[in-house]
């Protein structure tokens, strides 16, 4: 039997929605209303536990107020969202994603996922996205579905999945919602549907599957240049969205003989380089390190896997400003050749080896969780945060069947906030528009200003939106 606890002080009634439906919003738990306290034998038999994948382990150690480890995917429809219908769609579609219907639990040596028998609830959106999700609390889902005007947003805890897994979920949710609204289609393309049985491979830790133990370990890069700005208060996450015509950007990239990502990465690096060279000499000396970007690569492109959990790694294109000022053409050339060499299955396997090796180390495995958590942040900083000056992630072109596409205005991707990099960037395109979201935890907009002015100089029209 399932019991529910109701605390009237904890709830507010949202008047946000114009659809006429009021919704109860849990202001503390974020996404879960039902907390089962007494389980029947049948419910108990449904509970399954999963080991975390290699990337998830690191995220589970470090997530907190400053490093919420959340990324956000949104779909803006042409009509206002009916929250009751969206809730119904969520209740149905979550059945198709049992590996997301979980709660993070602490084990003796690692955190693990355990089936969450509650129901995720649609909640109102907030001014600042990607605020901390109390994932370590019992009953909390590692994602939250939010609604605002015409927009459905899902914020994912990065330990749960990566951008590809997140997008699959969002597309399935939007498709289910539109189906409930009466939109019909015969061709569902790659969209997951209610009633399908999940493939066993969707649960897998693909890092371990493609781990090659005999590969030599990879050398860690040294510390990178960081933006020298003061952090905003915890919880504040400014978003600047640049909306461009995807054809214009593609045409410019083609003209320069590079891909769209390489073109945008080069502009990003050039903007960071300008910031570095504009610093006073004394300050410049203190932060004189290579400028490097963290660029995630979807490993499903290289290794066949249907996993819906994390399966991405990073490459790090960059320049060294200590060697003098790089012209845009030089940066473009550096990025182009770097990507050709590094985005290769051998080097990626070496990268997988480096990450998985630590997890499989007997000493590491025998260390109790509380000790691992103490060292987790240091490892995260050493192996990740300190090595990059910013991050750039491109989800690529989002496609949905035409019947649904006619009801959708945009798909957007908002990156995870980073107190170390201060500014991060995520790109996604839908139909003929390219949506570039810069998230930042500092007041200064210098980087974004330089970036979009440079794009404008390249002849690309940009429309700016912000929170």
């Amino acid at each position, binding site marked *: 039997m399932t019991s529910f606890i109701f605390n009237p002080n904890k709830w507010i009634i949202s008047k946000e929605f114009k659809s006429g439906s009021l919704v109860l919003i849990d202001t503390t738990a974020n996404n879960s209303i039902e907390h089962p306290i007494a389980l029947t034998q049948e419910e108990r038999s449904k509970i399954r536990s999963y080991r975390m994948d290699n990337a998830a382990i690191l995220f589970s150690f470090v997530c907190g107020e400053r490093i919420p480890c959340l990324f956000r995917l949104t779909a803006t429809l042409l009509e206002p969202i009916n929250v009751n219908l969206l809730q119904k769609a969520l209740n149905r579609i979550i059945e198709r994603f049992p590996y997301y219907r979980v709660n993070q639990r602490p084990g003796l040596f690692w955190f693990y996922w355990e089936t969450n028998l509650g129901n995720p609830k649609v909640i109102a959106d907030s001014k600042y996205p990607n605020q901390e999700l109390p994932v370590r609390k019992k009953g909390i889902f590692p994602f939250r579905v939010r609604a*605002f005007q015409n927009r459905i947003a899902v914020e994912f805890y990065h330990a749960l999945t990566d951008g590809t897994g997140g997008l699959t979920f969002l597309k399935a949710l939007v498709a289910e919602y539109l189906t409930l609204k009466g939109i019909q289609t015969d061709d569902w393309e790659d969209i997951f549907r209610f009633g399908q049985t999940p493939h066993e491979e969707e649960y897998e830790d693909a890092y371990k599957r493609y781990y090659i133990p005999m590969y030599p370990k990879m050398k860690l890069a040294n510390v990178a240049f960081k933006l020298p700005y003061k952090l905003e208060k915890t919880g504040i996450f400014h978003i600047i969205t640049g909306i461009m015509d995807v054809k214009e950007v593609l045409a410019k990239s083609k003209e320069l003989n590079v891909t769209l990502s390489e073109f945008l990465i080069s502009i990003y690096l050039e903007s960071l380089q300008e910031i570095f060279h504009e610093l006073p000499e004394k300050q410049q000396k203190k932060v004189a390190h290579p400028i490097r970007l963290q660029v995630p690569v979807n490993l499903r492109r290289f290794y066949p896997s249907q996993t819906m959990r994390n399966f991405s790694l990073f490459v790090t294109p960059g320049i060294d400003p200590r060697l003098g000022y790089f012209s845009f053409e030089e940066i473009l050339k550096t990025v182009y050749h770097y990507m050709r060499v590094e985005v290769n299955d051998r080097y990626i396997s070496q990268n997988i080896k480096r990450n998985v090796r630590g997890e499989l180390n007997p000493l590491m495995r025998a260390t109790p969780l509380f000790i691992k958590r103490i060292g987790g942040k240091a490892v995260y900083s050493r192996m990740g945060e300190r090595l990059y000056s910013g991050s750039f992630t491109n989800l690529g072109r989002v496609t949905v069947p035409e019947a649904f596409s006619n009801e959708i205005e945009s798909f957007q991707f908002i990156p995870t906030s980073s107190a170390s990099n201060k500014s991060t960037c995520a790109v996604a395109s839908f139909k003929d528009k390219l949506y570039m979201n810069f998230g930042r935890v500092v007041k200064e907009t210098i980087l974004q200003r330089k970036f979009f002015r440079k794009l404008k100089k390249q002849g690309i029209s940009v429309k700016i939106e912000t929170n």
Partner: protein
Amino acid sequence: MPYCSRCGVEVDFGVEECPLCFLPIQEDPDRPVKEPVKKKYPDEPVEQPTKRILSPKEKRIRALEIISVSLMIPLLIVTFTDLIITETISWARFPMTTLVLVWLLCTFPLIFAKRPVIVTIGITISLIGFLVLVDYFDNWNIDWFHILALPIIALVLFLSVGVVIASFMVKQKGMNIAAFILFAVGILNLVLDLIIRSPPENKVNLTWSLFVLVPTFIVGGFLMYMHYRFTKDTDFKTKIKAKLQM
């Protein structure tokens, strides 16, 4: 569509300033109807309840409460154990007195956080009281307190106050403070040796304390020399660099 004349980027109708450079956006005079800005995000900044931040005083009171309750547990355990076994308070007097001393040593700094004089006096009185009680509980007689405990407490207090006053009096603080502490440690050991080993015939007989006194005074003297020889010289670093041709 309105745009920023400095950045060249377009913005929505109704947006007052450029989100990139904050330059005011020129309104289109030909546009008769003013449209309200279409919000992209709600105004509520943080949906999570904010944590209540305690003031330093509240933090200290909370700490005192936790310490008091934590000390109460062993106090009750030893008291009742002694009562059950011996049907009276016998050996439990010693741990009980120690626990009360620990409580006092924590209480004074927590309650009088910004009054160092009161804290020092309070701690000293607590220590004296503790030693008197321990001496008395031993054989219901005060025998070693006035010979050993009181002179040692007086000495530690005197030396501590001396170091603090000397540290306040010097203009330039640095290695000289470390030297004062070393001198005090040397003197403390010397007098301790005298107090502990004071022979009946009042003959001065120094033994181990000399092994502490000599190194502390040599190192202390070296620190004083370094401090007063070089810290006045602000160009010391530059001179060394010049000498080494760095």
